[in-house]
């Protein structure tokens, strides 16, 4: 099999998923709205004290981004599983893991990238500015693809199980903890003036590691789900 065929399969699946998201904009917009609403509720609940908001800001933004990702995980494979497209995906003449990369990329473009793009605005709400704000965007840019990849493993494992929404949260949230710690930690340490580079490189390492492992694990889980 040639490289161009593989590229065709990946770009084909990304284009199809983006097209589907365009046809169902409300679904795609849901996780972004969720993020904005959750993040906006905190200043209302905690009070408008700038010093307090600045301290909780990074943590709140990261937890909200993580939950928004979790909310959209159910859509990654379920529809394809129910309408039979997943069977066709397993039977393509390319390694399934390659196609899974395409599915994850599409998921990130639909639900992860908007979070990254909105984050400077949301960060301003919490009094973040200057370097910490830049580090926040950077940490989300490195962290959200990892969330999509780990999430895809969970989503594939619970395919066809009743009450899968809750189950995927139980499976995936513990694995999200390191990403949350490094992500929020990067912003906090940048605010403390010691720079966020250490945490950002750890996030980068997580990204590379999950890019290496997650597609294979997801592909294996999908095959089991179809047996």
């Amino acid at each position, binding site marked *: *099999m040639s490289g161009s*065929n593989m590229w*065709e*399969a990946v770009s*084909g*699946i990304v*284009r*199809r998923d983006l*097209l*589907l998201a365009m*046809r*169902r904009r409300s679904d795609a917009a849901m996780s972004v709205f969720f993020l904005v609403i959750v993040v906006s509720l905190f200043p209302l609940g905690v009070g408008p004290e700038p010093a307090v908001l600045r301290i909780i800001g990074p943590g709140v933004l990261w937890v909200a981004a993580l939950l928004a990702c979790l909310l959209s995980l159910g859509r990654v494979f379920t*529809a394809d599983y*129910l*309408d*039979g*497209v997943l*069977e*066709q*995906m*397993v*039977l*393509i*003449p*390319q*390694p399934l893991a390659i196609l899974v990369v395409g599915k994850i990329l599409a998921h990130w473009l639909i639900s992860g990238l908007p979070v990254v793009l909105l984050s400077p605005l949301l960060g301003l709400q919490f009094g973040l500015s200057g370097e910490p704000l830049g580090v926040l965007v950077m940490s989300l840019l490195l962290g959200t693809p990892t969330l999509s990849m780990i999430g895809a493993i969970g989503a594939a494992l619970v395919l066809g199980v009743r009450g899968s929404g809750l189950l995927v949260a139980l499976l995936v949230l513990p694995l999200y903890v390191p990403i949350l710690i490094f992500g929020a930690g990067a912003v906090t340490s940048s605010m403390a003036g010691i720079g966020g580079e250490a945490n950002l490189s750890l996030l980068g390492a997580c990204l590379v590691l999950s890019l290496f492992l997650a597609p294979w694990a997801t592909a294996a889980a999908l095959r089991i789900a*179809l*047996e």
Partner: protein
Amino acid sequence: MLQAVALHCSRGERRLFTDLNVKVERGSLLAVVGENGSGKTSLLRIFSSLLPPEQGSVLWEGQDIQQLKELYSAELTYIGHLNAIKDDLTPLENLMSAMSLTGESCSHNGAKEALEAIGLKRPIHHLPSKVLSQGQKRRVALARLWLSTRPLWLLDEPFTSLDTAATGVVTQRLHTHLQRGGLAVVVTHQEVALPAETIQRLRLTG
């Protein structure tokens, strides 16, 4: 040539078939018949490599399909009892994305011709598939057969919810496929109206 050697299959506690041996030559069609729940779909899924056989093996041109993997996938077109159609996409988009997924990309015009061949007229090509009837959706799924260049076709109940005209057209397409040296395994309740010498029947008793 597709060959099943001493296949065993059970789902849960139930034993569906044991020691099943069958051989399908090029140019012939294997019609799998049997009662509901007798393991017809399971057999087709084993043939497609979606379901690994419990015991025994499936050979394609003499080689085990478990070892051939993607090479075997490049030889087959599988249409399951699910249509693999996205409700939000039009028939044309569905067909083209299905073909690009299997690595047999087709042109816009090629896809249109395939849809017309199975009796879906032009205005329907651009409607969202969710407004189509069951029979029309089935036709969209089966339109892949007009674009497929693969030698092995695995079809699960292809004639479900098709009208007589469409059934005839699909049967004709199967006939052409067999004449070109292709082979097919078809799970069906209906008689397939093909010359008797090209059809081989396998009855599963469950």
